[in-house]
């Protein structure tokens, strides 16, 4: 958007200098690579924080674009004009009705169900990945996806004029398939689960010169999730919350929210403070929650079986890092059943007017479970991350949300139907009370 270029008066050199192995520390040039050649550890972008501190103030950020690019200095791109489709700066909603229902006092929802352009947090990571892909000279971009990432990669590639080929498991929700096909990418529906799709894509990435956002561009891509940390800090009036609850799939989002908070402390934008990190998984795919429960420091992969397909990653790459963060911040990692996930989706919709997908239902259900177990202090400022939109996973709630009352276009038909629905409501109440 035009504001990005207006506020950037001088051409600024990149604030990142290298990729660094998270395990052994070996440094690499910032190219399209994601794995350490020596120990296979993941590579992460290394920044010059004193330079960022010199360039950035609260005011300079507030004067920036109404998108993730207001935090440009913290992101691994060096283009003057990154791909800006209005991604980010989604509402942080004070969830008073949900809070009251649960017995909490300061609850907020970070609502990425309305992120732009494709209604999930993935637009953040893809905006960064495709900007970097363009800088590195790729003309074709690709991804392995459980749906949301495919939507986002296809849409933003269309906007940027990049060729796109996405790989999805063949059994995805129809809304997610349609929400990809509309942008006219090549779509490969793989007969297998997400982990199999991911393995296949790694093999393709070895031989085709494509930019896979979550494989060879992963170090850049994953940095986009940090903006979920920055925005919450800014929207809370430049302070950190006490506790966050987020869904866990690969574990990347969770670790990057943490990194975002730490970076804001590092450059002096917020005061340091202990933030507890709690994670949410579905029972049918809970390798990280299982490891947490059993006090293991390694992840045993599982074969997913849950309605929460967007977070059904049986072999989570950043699982060990997510475990580490939950433990060292005194957080918890919990899992919930598919029935609880559906209830979570409905609860958020009924109390806050937000229709989330299954990942959000998982997160709300875990929030409920943590409150019931006394693991969230009612007075903690708690932020729950809702990362996707319910319109994409309508199958999950089909049959659980009732039916419209069909009536004739006559007043008495309406009155009868209204009376009947009130009676049904009362009966439901009685059932609950008994």
């Amino acid at each position, binding site marked *: 958007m035009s504001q990005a270029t207006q506020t950037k008066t001088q051409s600024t050199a990149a604030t990142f200098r290298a990729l660094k192995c998270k395990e052994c520390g070996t440094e690499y040039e910032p190219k399209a690579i994601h794995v350490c050649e020596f120990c296979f550890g993941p590579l992460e972008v290394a920044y010059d924080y004193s330079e960022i501190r010199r360039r950035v103030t609260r005011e300079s950020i507030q004067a920036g674009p109404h998108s993730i690019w207001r935090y440009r200095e913290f992101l691994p791109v060096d283009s003057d004009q990154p791909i800006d489709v209005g991604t980010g700066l989604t509402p942080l909603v004070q969830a008073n009705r949900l809070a009251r229902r649960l017995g909490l006092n300061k609850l907020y929802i970070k609502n990425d169900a309305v992120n732009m352009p494709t209604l999930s947090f993935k637009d953040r990571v893809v905006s960064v990945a495709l900007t970097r892909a363009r800088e590195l000279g790729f003309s074709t971009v690709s991804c392995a996806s459980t749906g949301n990432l495919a939507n986002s990669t296809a849409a933003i590639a269309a906007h940027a004029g990049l060729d796109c080929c996405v790989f999805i498991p063949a059994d995805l929700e129809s809304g997610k398939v349609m929400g990809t096909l509309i942008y006219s990418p090549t779509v490969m529906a793989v007969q297998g689960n997400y982990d199999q799709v991911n393995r296949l894509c790694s093999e393709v990435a070895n031989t085709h010169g494509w930019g896979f956002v979550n494989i060879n561009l992963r170090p850049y891509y994953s940095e986009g999730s940090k903006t979920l940390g920055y925005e919450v800090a800014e929207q809370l009036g430049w302070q950190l919350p006490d506790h966050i609850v987020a869904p866990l799939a690969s574990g990347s989002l969770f670790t990057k929210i943490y990194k975002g908070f730490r970076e804001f402390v590092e450059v002096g934008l917020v005061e340091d403070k202990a933030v507890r990190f709690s994670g949410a998984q579905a029972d049918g795919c809970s390798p990280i929650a299982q490891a947490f429960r059993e006090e293991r420091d390694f992840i045993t*992969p599982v074969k997913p079986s849950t309605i929460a397909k967007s977070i059904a990653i049986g072999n989570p790459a950043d699982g060990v890092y997510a475990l580490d963060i939950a433990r060292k911040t005194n957080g918890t990692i919990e899992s919930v059943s598919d029935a609880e996930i559906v209830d979570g989706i409905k609860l958020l919709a009924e109390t806050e007017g937000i229709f989330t997908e299954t990942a959000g239902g998982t997160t709300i259900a875990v929030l409920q479970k943590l409150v019931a177990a006394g693991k969230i202090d009612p007075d903690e400022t708690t932020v729950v991350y809702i990362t996707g939109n319910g319109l994409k996973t309508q199958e999950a709630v089909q049959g659980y949300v009732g039916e419209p009352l069909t009536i004739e276009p006559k007043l008495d038909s309406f009155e009868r139907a209204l009376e009947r629905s009130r009676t049904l409501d009362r009966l439901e109440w009685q059932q609950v009370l008994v």
Partner: protein
Amino acid sequence: MAVKVLIPTPLQKLTNDQATVECQGTTIADLLNSLESSCPGIKGRLCDDNGELRRFVNFYVNSEDIRFLDGINTALSDGDEVSIIPAIAGG
């Protein structure tokens, strides 16, 4: 026991830029030794000092993760395809 091994990009420097290597081995452990003799140095990249597979390395035999089979002792048959994949993020 000839087995086809798919080599990930970060290791292709050790295989003369080859993306696949033909190898011998009756188990994954056996295969690792055979790989090491044809591509010296590769085992040290895949295993830690105790000889255990590093935690970010995934091995698949005919598309199945060896952690769902017998791990490093998973048996191999003639014509099997073994894929070595770094852990990757998703969504």
